[in-house]
């Protein structure tokens, strides 16, 4: 473990890359679901007439937006699963590997 200082540096550098990548996806995704959900509660709280506008038959905009929030949550969950598998997991594995490779020396 002669190179422990440099291996630590390499490992932390690769973690910073991973965190940067996570922020790039998770910040917008979090903003989207929070805006849509909190936005819906704000509308329901302060714009009753707007939410009560009929869309299809007796179904009003409020119920349509609720259904949209269900679909959005599921969509984001699946998207996150794919992004994490394709982007985050390889980076995390590389960080762990760089640590192992360096510390063996």
């Amino acid at each position, binding site marked *: *473990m002669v190179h*422990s200082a440099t*291996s*630590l540096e390499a*490992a*932390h550098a690769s*973690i910073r890359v*991973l*965190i940067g990548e*996570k922020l790039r996806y*998770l910040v917008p*995704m*979090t903003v989207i*679901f*929070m805006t849509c*959900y*909190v936005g*819906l*509660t*704000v509308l*329901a*709280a*302060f714009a*009753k007439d707007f*939410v*009560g506008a009929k869309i*299809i*038959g*007796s*179904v*009003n905009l*409020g*119920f349509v937006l*609720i*259904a949209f*929030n*269900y679909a959005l*949550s*599921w969509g*984001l*969950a*699946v998207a*996150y*699963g794919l992004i*994490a*598998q394709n982007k985050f*997991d390889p980076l*995390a594995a590389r*960080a*762990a590997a760089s*640590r*192992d490779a360096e*510390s063996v020396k």
Partner: protein
Amino acid sequence: MNITLEIFAVILLITIGITYWAARRTATTSDFYAADSGLTAAQNGFALAGDWASAAAFLGFSGLTALYGMDGAFYALGPLVAFCTVLFLIAEPMRNTGKYTLGDIVRTRMQTRTSLLAVIAGTVIVNFAYLMPQMAGAGVLVRLLTGISYDWAVIFVGISMIVYVAFGGMLATTWVQIVKAVFMMTAGAIILVMILSMVKFNPLLIFQEAESKYTASYLLPGNYLKNPFDQISLGLGYVLGLAGLPHVMTRFYTVPDARTARRSVVWVMFLAGVFFACTTIFGLAAANFVGQDAIRAADKGGNLALPLLAQYLGGGKGSFGGDLMLGFVAAVAVATILAVVSALTLSTSSAIAHDFYVNWLKGGRVDGKREVWVARVASVAIGLLAIALGILAQGVNVAVLVILAICVAASANFPVLVLSLFWRRFNTGGVIGGMTLGLVSSVALAMIGPAMRGADAWWPLVNPTIVSLPLGFLGCVLGTLLAGRDFDNEKRFDAFLFRVHTGVEPK
């Protein structure tokens, strides 16, 4: 209603069989607290669904929708959206960092005994605030459904959960939750198909009939939550509170790695989410077919809307099909309570045995065999205490406790957890500041609010999260700044962060 008891006896036999099987596989601490981290994503997803969907979800959402229209649908949506927060921020870091409890994460990060004590307090308070109304609800529900007296119902539920947890630990608790989730979703699927077949598979007709029967205002928001800020506060409480509920979050320790934890969240979002969405249909259908008056006559809060709907769909009162459907739904409701109270008992006993006894009192120097023994004894003691509190709670207004559980989870546990995972400067002072301010403001505001004081409340909101959550975060920041910088802790943060994101230590 003998058929309820018969169906429930079958479910009870299954769960006792599970406990017997699990008890023989539960020896080490890892077995007891985390089912040896050996579950698959699908198994944990079903267990999470069984864990998170309490009787309030199974019966309450349909009932609220039946009586108050859209507000019930809001109640059902929040618990699904909450899993977005958990998926993006909490599930994987938690699996990577901790071992058995929420306390593990803060202890690993801060390495101070005081911060651990603060998290133990947060865990125990949230769990008991959640557990007591569940016990009281069990008493009322079992009495309504089977005619057994309130006290005996509470004792029966309490003893069942003690047996599951003390003997079978996490493995038994998990499979009780899985069985319950399967029964719950089977019941939901049958009811959904029967409703749809009655409206020629056109759900729009359900809305149309609801409107013609109860006017368009029934389908508007604000029938239940009169104060607009309560609407927002409730949403916030759900979406951030779930991540601070120890009995749900410790489920992520039952899977081997972060990837499986993530996939189990996706599972629960579809399993529980579809069920939550269906409760809106069930509620409207109950209002249409059974009628609000009949629902109110059976239970003021609307909690019997779903059982009554099932009875109607099966052929009505007195018919064999009606009795069978009612019995099935009622039995599933009792199983639901059992699954949730078991998880609460287990997570509280982990906090007492693992966090308090082993890590706080004994500095980690306790062998595994003794730790499991302490945890089993703790679960028996917690169960007995829950029975006593449940019996005392008869006739007492426990609504305030339901709000407190989720509010404290969002305002105290969530800020501390999130900042522990992601903020370099965060220190022991911050943990104490956040816990204290989050806890005190939640309790104080709930106590002076309408849930406790009714019409002469000094504070207008039923759910205080919209104020107490920012206060919790403020407490974290102020505590951190006042305590001064903890440079050792900040130096360790890089290594901690490595573990948060990869699950391994940087050597």
